[in-house]
């Protein structure tokens, strides 16, 4: 099980992130008066941390299903952009590819973005295990939080920074891999600009859309640096 070992190694940082946020979600769910089953079912079917955390208070206030749908669209719209890089890879994976598509979270995406497969590895199998392990970590976290969250004797405040640290590590790895720095600079400029202009709650989607348009406009210089068959 060389592939499983590789997947475990690649997802250790996600384990801690998901365990903590999952526990936070489990506690929130039980405190709101819902059972363990709701916590685990959300983790299994939805598998989207920030939306699950928003969903619980919306449910207690009796939000309509249409409102829930709209909120989900705005919070998770960024996921539209994730699949673009994996259309060909997942297509070759059969039923595993369908699972990959439906479980493509921020964290799984970032693992796959910076992955360096070891030689001799069945890459499709390793990719699948990465998504599966992340999903299991998340379900486990939500289960633990709902069952014993309030009994945990230690205060884990701040451990969710591991997600930020992980994303930052991925960016540094990409910075080394990419000869062109234009995508990084475009993204940083757009994000900071929209953050100042629109505030912290509304800058994400305009930023991603503008990045998409800017990268389309910058195709010539970027391909000139990266080479076309790679680009």
């Amino acid at each position, binding site marked *: 099980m060389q592939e499983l070992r590789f997947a475990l190694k690649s997802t*250790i*940082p996600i384990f*801690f992130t998901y365990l903590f946020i999952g526990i936070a979600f489990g506690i929130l769910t039980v405190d709101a008066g819902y059972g363990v089953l*709701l916590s685990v*079912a*959300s983790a299994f*079917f*939805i598998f*989207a941390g920030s*939306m699950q955390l928003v*969903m619980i208070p919306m449910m207690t206030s009796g939000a309509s299903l249409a409102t*829930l749908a709209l909120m*989900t*669209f705005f919070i*998770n719209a*960024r*996921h*539209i952009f994730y*699949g*673009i*890089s994996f*259309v060909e890879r*997942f*297509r070759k994976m059969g039923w595993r590819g369908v699972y990959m*598509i*439906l479980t493509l979270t*921020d964290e799984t*995406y*970032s693992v796959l*973005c910076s992955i360096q497969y070891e030689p001799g590895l069945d890459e499709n199998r390793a990719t699948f295990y990465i998504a599966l392990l992340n999903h299991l970590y998340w379900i486990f976290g939500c289960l633990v939080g709902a069952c014993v969250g309030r009994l945990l004797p230690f205060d884990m*405040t*701040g*451990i969710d*920074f591991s997600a*930020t*640290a*992980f*994303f*930052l*590590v991925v*960016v540094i790895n*990409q*910075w080394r891999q990419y000869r062109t720095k234009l*995508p*990084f600079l*475009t*993204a*940083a400029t*757009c*994000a*900071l600009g929209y953050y100042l202009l629109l505030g*912290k709650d509304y800058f994400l989607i305009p930023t*991603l859309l503008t*990045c*998409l348009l800017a*990268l389309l406009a*910058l195709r010539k210089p*970027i*391909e000139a640096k990266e080479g076309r068959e790679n*680009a």
Partner: protein
Amino acid sequence: MPETLYSIAAIAVVALVTWSLRATPFILFGSRPLPDLMRYLGKALPPAIMTVLVIYCLRNVSFAHFPFGIPEIAACTLVALLHIVKKNMYLSIIAGTVCYMVLVRVL
């Protein structure tokens, strides 16, 4: 029991919208040969998206109020420096997270 029904419906709606968003690129380009433009975007988008995600993670930091984002700035600097020098993902993430957890308690 209507409340159970509402819970099931809520999870179903949130899950279906999330799945549809994740599946959008595959529904649009799934069965045809991938256009060159999409192949280009598949390569050019990830560094942009990851950069945006880092900033998105830090969106709740307040530089105007105590502790002025010091835990985040210090921890991110430590992660970046360690990773540039040592190139060890686990070391960078663990050291950065521990640094952050200590600072939010001390400050």
